[in-house]
């Protein structure tokens, strides 16, 4: 069975813990955590990931900048990206999707929604 890898980029330890708990429900998914956008890019440079789940509001480098950088990187330009944010307006959603995000989840997150989104993007049954 194929094994998948996921990079979680989130500055809140609590949210990271929650996302790790949720994504542990997806079979054969290995999860790596990054504290912010810079840490995320560092980890992306050293390994290949099948999907990225990132918060928008983070210090040092926010999620939108991270999405732009990832999309300009040939190695990860096609990697699915899920944006998680407190902003629920359609303009924010459009902005994130225009930058290249594949899905958009608003806080407070619901674990089943995160699981379903990741499974859908990875095409896991």
């Amino acid at each position, binding site marked *: 069975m194929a094994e998948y890898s996921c990079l979680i980029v989130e500055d809140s330890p*609590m949210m990271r*813990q*929650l996302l790790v708990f949720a994504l542990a*429900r997806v079979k054969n998914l290995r999860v790596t955590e990054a504290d912010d956008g810079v840490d995320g890019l560092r980890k992306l440079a050293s390994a290949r990931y099948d999907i990225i789940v990132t918060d928008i509001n983070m210090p040092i480098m926010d999620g939108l900048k991270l999405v732009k950088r990832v999309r300009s990187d040939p190695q990860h330009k096609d990697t699915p990206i899920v944006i998680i944010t407190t902003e*629920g307006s359609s303009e924010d959603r459009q902005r994130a999707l225009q930058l290249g995000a594949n899905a958009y989840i608003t*806080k*407070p997150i619901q*674990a*089943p929604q995160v*699981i379903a989104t990741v499974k859908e993007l990875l095409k896991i049954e």
Partner: protein
Amino acid sequence: MTEQRKPARSDAPPQDLRRERDEFLQTFTKGSRLAEEFLAEHERVQERVRALEEENARLRAQVQADNAVRDLVETIARLEAEKAELLSRTARAEAASTQVVTRFSEVESEFAHLANLYVASNQLHASLSPRSVTRRIKEVLAQLVGAERYAMYLATGDGAQLVPIASEGLAGDRVIPLDVATTRAGEVLRSGSAVVDEDGDPSRGTPETPAAILPLTVDERVVGVIVIIATLAQKKRFDTNDFQLFRLLGQHAAGALVSASLFVAAGRRLPGLEAFIDLSV
């Protein structure tokens, strides 16, 4: 002249022969007629036999066709019964499958709730710094409950006022001490019972009609309150998970804060072993 006697005609049959001849002719004619009648009757009988054979063949064919139809009807009835049984089995299987899917969804949802509670509890007790505990309480409110504007208050020693110790999304002039005797937050402090707008849209809460007010307890004493004025716009309703989080915050947030404060007051020194010696029950 002598009358010459005419010789008698030699072909003239005698009377008896004539009679015999006539009788014969009559008999012959009768026989001939009978033979003709017999032949005609024979012809009719042959015709009748042919007709009966045809009728017989037709009836045999009809009987065979009827048998085939009867067989077909029986086969159709059997197939209909099998179809009904299969449909019934399919319906039962679908119902069972739906039940499994529903149950799976419920279990996943319950797991998510438990994960939320575990993470919240874990975070609240993961630090002995009052500032860090306060930040973690705010994280639980913002990230797990989806609170956008809120404030946390602790009661003064005399219990007359609630003093804000943390807030988010509120203008400075809104974050002021509250009178316990005259405010809704004070009422919650006095009663120890949470007030939650269960039916309304919590994102539309106001300082006058907050979405929720939660009592904070330490060792069964109410020492403060959390006032959630409004949630994020996309959070339109509190659910079971929120009520469980409210209960957890009410029972653990103030305790975590008190523990952290006492730890700092003790110079961040862990108590010695002697502090635990008499704890056996």
